């Protein structure tokens, strides 16, 4: 009789333990569901803010500058006026910064961009810097993946002089195409090591310098429309061109920080 009572007590204890475990499981699941709900909501909120701010930055860049960027599988073409003004874009970015920082937990770090005025071309984890500084210089940093450059100038006046001085025997392709009515400057070299080309338009000089490392710089005081195509060796992926303006989203309650950049193309 005594052992039977113990058996019943044990059985009941086991039963209660099973119920208790299930209750704990249920409460754990309920709290997990709640935190998952919060996480999913937070993810969507971050996505919305991040995407919209980057999209607005790209729209602002394209509508207030003369830049136009097109990336293909093995090249990037950047069209712009050689004397590019960033003043309107800078004012708009300041407004975007003010609104974003007041409305969202967001930090827009644009100071470096306006002091260096760069675009970053990223291909297969190689970064190529395209800078356009205040003194009328366009600079494309040297990179072993660059196969060549093709420059087109749309002169607003007659070409008065075209003086190429290119050293051949290297691996870089370089072509220049500038036509205004009867005057023109057309070059195409398939194996450039280094050199210079001086192009005079209406008594203003556009100077092209290719260094031995493969860096191309264009110096000018002429406000001419240009289009520069950078060709790459065979790539697996289409290169991406982005504005080096970090969009940093901070959410201290989730100890979450996300940094991303607006992609122009």
């Amino acid at each position, binding site marked *: 009789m005594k052992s039977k009572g113990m058996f019943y007590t044990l059985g009941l204890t086991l*039963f209660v333990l*099973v*119920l208790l475990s*299930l209750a704990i*499981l*249920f409460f754990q*699941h*309920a709290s997990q*569901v709640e935190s*998952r*709900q919060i996480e*999913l*909501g937070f993810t*969507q*909120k971050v*996505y*919305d*803010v991040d*995407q*919209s*701010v980057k999209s*607005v930055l790209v*729209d*602002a860049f394209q*509508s*207030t500058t003369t830049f136009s960027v097109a990336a293909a599988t093995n090249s990037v073409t950047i069209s712009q006026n050689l004397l590019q003004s960033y003043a309107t874009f800078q004012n*708009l970015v300041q*407004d*975007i910064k003010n*609104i*974003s920082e007041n*409305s*969202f937990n967001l930090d827009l770090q644009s100071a470096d961009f306006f002091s260096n005025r760069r675009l970053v071309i990223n291909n297969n984890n190689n970064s190529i810097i395209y800078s356009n500084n205040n003194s009328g210089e366009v600079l494309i940093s040297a990179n072993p993946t660059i196969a060549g450059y093709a420059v087109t100038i749309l002169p607003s006046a007659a070409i008065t002089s075209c003086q190429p001085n290119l050293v051949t025997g290297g691996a870089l392709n370089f072509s220049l195409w500038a036509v205004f009515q009867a005057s023109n400057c057309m070059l195409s070299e398939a194996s450039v090591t280094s050199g210079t080309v001086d192009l005079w338009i209406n008594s203003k000089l556009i100077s092209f310098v290719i260094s031995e490392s493969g860096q191309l710089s264009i110096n000018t005081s002429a406000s001419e429309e240009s289009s520069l195509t950078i060709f790459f060796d065979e790539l697996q992926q289409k290169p991406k061109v982005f504005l080096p303006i970090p969009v940093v989203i901070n959410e201290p309650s989730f100890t979450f920080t996300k940094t991303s950049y607006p992609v122009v193309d």
Partner: protein
Amino acid sequence: MKMRNYLSRFGNKGFVLTLDLILAMVVVFTVLAVILFFVGRGSEVTLSEHQLTLIGSDIITLLDQKKSFDSFDSTEISIALTEIIPAQYEMLVRLQGDFTEGNGTIEVGGEIPSQRLITAGQRLAMSDTNTLFTITYFIWPRLQ
């Protein structure tokens, strides 16, 4: 002889024990069923709420891409919203920014109901005239 001894020793306790076992099983399975029901319902609520947020975000992105907000005209925005929103959902869209219409705040859509599942989101946008504004949206399932 053995059988008789067995019956006399346990009587009809076997019947009671069987009933007890059945009752215990009914209780256990009922508890299990209730738990599974709530667990399943919890997951469904999470997914449907997230789905609701995704739909809201997609609608706002689409309207922004179509430049439907650029006029800052509540009637035009309302028509564009009605054209795009699925019949089973309702939305309230609030635009806030440095524009003259509505003193910088425009609200379009239904009224936020009480005691209903509502999700919300926020985006930054820019019109063709470079006017910056924030879009806050609320979305909830429409009562059938």
